[in-house]
């Protein structure tokens, strides 16, 4: 059960310092705006934390651009705003460096061929709930989330938006329990990210045929191919120990969307 509140709490408290910069091409006026520094939660999404940033930079750009679709890039890479911030950061920073994280905010020239318009909070919310449902389909065949009421869904979302750990976990606890007498989930909702930001999804069982709990190492073995060996995963900015059981990871290290987001470390053989 997801009862290791110490871990949950540490994971929840993960933040990334971000240095938001304006796009010099969009700025009007003589003065370039100062960079805007912000601590953002790793578990949150960019559109949820950037209201202040947007407001700050809006003053410096021309009027006709102000209503444009906002997007972000980090060092030239457009950022998918429906990925959790922690995932975005971990993907772009395989090593523990590059802090604070420099992100450029754009008000125009939305790269429609790369990004999808997830800039409004409503869209992010619906994406978030969809992920939650998909995760529940994998874990409990979707029974828990569909048994919940609308207000529970709202509580989950508002807990995330307002950074309220207790509010969020009061509901999320139910999603993180195996149903009935089972000890484990049906499958582990997990996404394995490649370096280019795409991800792979597979049916991962938390136990093996003999009914024993599988660990991360077992999983890495499964993911290895003769030409490429999976040697480790990073999530929440840390490399995870190979002995960690999959069920426990799902319960404790999942992002609020109930998925484990793993950045894979491969070694070519």
């Amino acid at each position: 059960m997801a009862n290791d509140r110490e871990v949950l709490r540490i994971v929840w408290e993960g933040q990334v310092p971000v240095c938001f910069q304006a796009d010099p091409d969009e700025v009007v006026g003589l003065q370039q705006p100062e960079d805007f520094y912000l601590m953002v939660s790793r578990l949150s999404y960019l559109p949820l934390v950037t209201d202040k940033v947007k407001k700050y930079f809006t003053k410096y750009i021309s009027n006709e651009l102000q209503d444009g679709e906002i997007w972000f890039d980090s060092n030239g890479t457009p950022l998918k705003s429906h990925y959790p911030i922690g995932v975005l950061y971990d993907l772009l920073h395989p090593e523990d460096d590059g802090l604070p994280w420099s992100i450029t905010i754009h008000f125009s020239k939305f790269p429609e061929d790369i990004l999808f318009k997830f800039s409004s909070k409503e869209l992010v919310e619906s994406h978030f709930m969809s992920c939650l449902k998909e995760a529940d389909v994998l874990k409990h065949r979707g029974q828990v989330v569909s048994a919940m009421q609308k207000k529970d869904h709202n509580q989950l979302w508002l807990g995330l938006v307002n950074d309220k750990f207790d509010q969020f976990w009061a509901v999320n606890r139910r999603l993180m329990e195996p149903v009935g007498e089972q000890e484990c989930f049906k499958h582990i909702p997990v996404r394995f990210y490649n370096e280019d930001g795409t991800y792979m999804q597979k049916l991962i069982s938390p136990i093996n045929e003999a009914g024993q709990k599988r660990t991360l190492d077992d999983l890495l073995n499964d993911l290895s191919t003769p030409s490429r060996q999976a040697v480790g995963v990073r999530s929440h900015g840390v490399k995870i120990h190979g002995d960690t059981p999959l069920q426990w990871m799902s319960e404790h290290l999942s992002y609020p969307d109930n998925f484990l987001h793993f950045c894979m470390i491969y070694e070519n053989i």
Partner: protein
Amino acid sequence: MFTSHTVPVTSILIVSHGGSPFKSSHRSDKNKDFEVMSETESTSDKKPEVSNDDSVSTGNDKGSENQSTKVDILLNATGNVPIMKKRRWAVDQEKPISWIMKFVHKYLKLDPEEKLFLYVNQTFAPSPDQIVKNLYECHGTNGKLVLYYCKSQAWG
């Protein structure tokens, strides 16, 4: 879909109960699908059609080594959406969901401003950049991925 506000023990019963009609309905679908499949096979026009639309793809050019692998998807209409004459399609597994949405949108000749929602197994809406392969691996049944499309949010 599942209405179980009951104690855990009975909820198990409901699990099995809720599961079986779901499966059986798919099984009954299957026979029809095979007919469709054989028909498409005989006409053998599906591959060119799909590859023609490659140009529309949003350019998910990752994994070019398994570009040719295709996945069977089954498109079901829900609500007041026109049904598609051909429900079963073989789709490049690296294609994103947004590509399928565009394809259905075009196939049904919907207005550009009309919305289209896709659902996997009548449960959740996949992210538009989710690729078909992932959904197929996790939610495919009987060798195919069942997608439902509608013009209003259904299983929101």
